[in-house]
Structure formats: structure tokens, C-alpha cells
């Protein structure tokens, strides 16, 4: 018996909003980055599931999720580079310490 589609969708939505929650509440920038990865992976699951269950004859969703994964990797690379740069300046990666500019 096949797992119904709704299970996958619920999983991906839970992942997505866990990511949103983590992005807003976490202070450590690496944890924020991980939260964003959660969100992006939730989207990938969505694409794959929609493709598999609703439009099985074509591959558009699968292809899109492959591209999304590649671009997410590029995002992570740049984010890590900037985080390392921040660590060199202020010796920690706490988002709370990036408050020189406000309002």
C-alpha cells in the first residue's frame, strides 16, 4: 500500500515552518543557516511529491528540485564565507552582536 500524498505534504509544511520558527528565534548564525536549509528542503519535498502523485507523466518538479538543491548549496557557501568574515571581526557568530546599525 502506498503512503497517501497528504502525509508528505504535512511533513514538508512542518519542516518549512520549523525552519521559519528556527530562523526567527535562533541567535547563532549557523543555526539560522540550518533553519533556512530546512525551509529549502521542505520545498524540494513539495516539488517531488507533487510531481510523483499529481503529474506522474513528466519530470518538471524533479528537475526543479535538483536545481533548487544546487542553488541552496551556493547560498550556503556564500553564507559561510560571510559568517567566517564576521567571526574574524567580532570573534563570535551571534546575530545579536550585529547591532551597530539600527532604525
Amino acid at each position: 500500500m502506498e503512503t497517501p500524498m497528504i502525509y508528505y505534504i504535512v511533513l514538508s509544511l512542518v519542516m518549512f515552518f520549523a525552519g521559519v520558527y528556527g530562523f526567527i528565534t535562533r541567535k547563532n548564525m549557523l543555526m539560522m543557516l540550518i533553519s533556512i536549509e530546512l525551509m529549502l528542503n521542505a520545498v524540494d519535498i513539495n516539488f517531488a511529491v507533487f510531481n510523483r502523485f499529481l503529474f506522474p507523466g513528466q519530470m518538471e518538479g524533479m528537475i526543479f528540485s535538483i536545481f533548487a538543491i544546487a542553488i541552496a548549496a551556493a547560498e550556503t557557501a556564500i553564507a559561510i564565507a560571510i559568517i567566517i568574515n564576521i567571526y574574524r571581526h567580532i570573534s563570535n557568530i551571534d546575530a545579536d552582536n550585529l547591532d551597530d546599525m539600527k532604525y
Partner: protein
Amino acid sequence: MDLSQYSLIWEYMQPELLLLVATILLFFVDLFASPRFLDKWFSGIACVLLAVVTALSCIPGSETNTLFAGMFINTPMTTAMKMVLNIGTILVLLQSHAWINSEACRVRRGEFYELMFFTLFGMYLMISAGHFLIFFIGLETASLPIAALVAFNKQGGKSYESGAKYLFNAVFSSAIFLMGISFIYGISGSLYFDDIAATASANTALFVVALAFIITGIGFKLSLVPFHLWTADVYQGGPTAVTAYLSVISKGAAAFAFIWVLFKTFSPAPEVWQGILYVLIILTITLGNLFAIRQKDLKRFLAFSSISQAGYIMLGVMAYSAQGLTALVYYILVYIFSNLAAFGVIATIEHKTGKVGMDDYNGLYKTNPKLSLAMMLAMFSLAGIPPFAGFFSKFFIFASAVNSGYYVLVFIALLNTIISLYYYLLVVKAMFINANENPIETIKTGCYGRTGLVVCVAGILLLGLASCVYGYLSGLSLTVGF
């Protein structure tokens, strides 16, 4: 596979391909030319390459071409949009010459040009996209290198803070945007703009949610109000040349791309996105203006001013007509010249003295009459005072919104124009009227910077009077079907 496609790719994707060739050429120049030669000519080479790309490929033709089964669409209007972006980028390159050749940045200056050209390439893709995959790749290609550019001042200042703020906001909003696309895919089973418009049933809740998510993603790039919080910090901390690039080119490209997404993909439900935009525009214009009043740092000040300008730009999208499209492209063209004139003056003064506060500009007219004059014209044009180009662009964009029946919205926008007049004139007052014991000393602008400023000022003075520009754009936008 049909091999005859290859020659068509070269023919139809010329702006993109030539830009890539230019980027690679720049890379080799950076690698092999002697530093002494580059000190003098690197900016010049970059500008000339971009001008050549523009002249060879970005002159609007008359036919609509599609490639890759409709994923890539090249119309006369998209080509005109690319030309507008190119003009702006050339001006930014001219203005950045002094900063990029300073001691701290000289080693890495090649990266600056190459990253900038890559972002431009991404914006081209965004504008020409006919499929959400191309659109998404373009969006990311346009925003990720900018994060690196914003964090470009590695040694000092708040550059790293700005870079982090920009990057995290960009990635967060692009994740939300992607979620929107995945819902759209679930509804319609296709990611082609035209197919979505044909198959999606407009009134389902999922469609509205997807639309809201997509507007969030692009609204971030445009810095519309609920998604604007990154703008001021990034503008203040980033290098001034990059800030200028962000505020005009990146924003203009996002507006151009936004218009295609809404007009093509979401054409079944114009009242839904117009309803969302209606609220966003009022919030954007009003809050942008109110926050701009209390700014003391000129770069932050221009950040909030650019937020409210984004609201005005969106009026052209609201109109949803050929007139609105024309007014929007024209508005962005004028906005490029006015805003870059302001940023050019700020960049010059910041590079020589390090001062960006509004109080530092007190009595600037005594020592630097030409710079103050350029700044004054820029402020007048941004505020929309009659003989200058800014007035005409505002007039056209209001006219297009009125023609579509948005009387209340235009009235609110007009009231906000009056508020904006107040704070734009504050800068002029500081330069011309406020007394100052020791104003900024007389500054000699370099050759590149001066050329950039002169072109900007000429644009401010002439664009409004030369009606052929608007007429030309209007002719192009009539070829777009509504």
C-alpha cells in the same frame, strides 16, 4: 535533437551571451594586464565592454523570439529593459572608479567588476524568463553575488554586518518564494508562465497563498514595506558604489521581472494581486517617507527614500495596462539618473573625507558649488519638481494609475509627495543655507566620477524635456498584449 537551435540561441540570447563574453574578457584582463595599466584603465575597459554589449545587442528590435520551448522570451520591451539596466550599470561603474582603486580594494577590484556583471546576467534572465525555473535561477544569480559585493570592504566598517543581513534576508525570502512556486506547481502542473495562466483556477485558496508567497519573495528585492527591514542597514554599511547599484539596478530589475510575473502568470486573477499591492503601496510610500524624515546619515536617508520610490514604481504595476508599463520603465530610467547623481556626490565626498552625515553637508555650497548643484538637482528630481525629469516620471505614473481608476491611491501618493518634498529639501537646505564654521574642504573629483555625474545631471535635465524617450517606450509597450 535539432542542431539548428544552436544558431538561434546565439541570435536570440545575444545580450546574455555577449555579457558573459564580456565577463570572461574582464577576467583575463584582470589576470594578465599589469597593475599600473589597470589602475588607470580597468574601469574604462569595463565601461566600454558594457557599452559595446549594449550597442550590439540591447537595441530593441521588432520581433518576439522564444527559446528552449518558451522558457526564454525575448521581446522588444525586455530588450529595452536590459538597455535601461545597462545604462545604469555603466554609470555605477564610472562612479565606483575612485573607491575601487583605493589602497584597500585595489587587489580585489577584478572581483568587483566580475560579480557585478554576473548579477546583471542574472537580472537579464529574470526579465526574459518565461518559466519559473529560469526566473528562480536568475533571481538567485542576481542576489547572491550582491551579498558578496555588500560585504566587500573586508577590513573595516560595517560591511560584514550588512552582508550578513542582506544574505540572510535574501535566502529567507527566496525560500518563501520557492514555497509559493511549489504550490503553483501543485495547482497547475506546469511552471511555464503561460500554462499557469491558462490552467490555474484563480479563486482557490491555494492559489492566493501561492501568490502571497511569490509577492513576498519579490517584494524583498524591491524592499516593499513589510519586507523592507534589511534595506537601511545594508545601504548604510555597504560600500557606496554597491549601495547605488542595489538601489537602482537591482530594484529596477526586480520591478521589471515582477511586472512580467504578475501580468503573465497571474493574469487570471488581477483583482487578487491588485488588492494585495494596494495595501503594500500605501504602506511602502507612507512608512518610507516617515522614516526618511528622521534620518541623519545620508545613505540611510536615501535608503528610506528608495523604499518610498519603490512604492511609486509599483503604481505602474497596479495600473495593469500598456500605459502603466511604459510609465514604469520610464520612471525607473529617470530614477536611475536622479538617484545615481545623489549617490555619485555622496560617494565622492565619502571617499575623500569619510563623511556621510547630513550635518557634515552644512555649507557645502561655499566650498563645492558644483557638487552641491548636482546634489540639488538630484533631490529636486527625486521629489518631482517640475522642470526636471522626476516630475514627468511621477506625472506619467500617476496618470496611468488614475486611468485605471485608482483615485484614492493616487491621492495618498500625492500627499506623500508633499512629505517627501520636505525631507529632500532638508538636504538642499543643509548645503545652501545652513551656516558652518568648517565645511568640507574643496574636493577635486576624478575624471571618471566627473563624467558619471555630468551624464546623470544631463539625464535629469533632458530626459523630461525630450518627449521622444517616453514616446519610444510607449510604442514598445503597445506591442505587449494585455
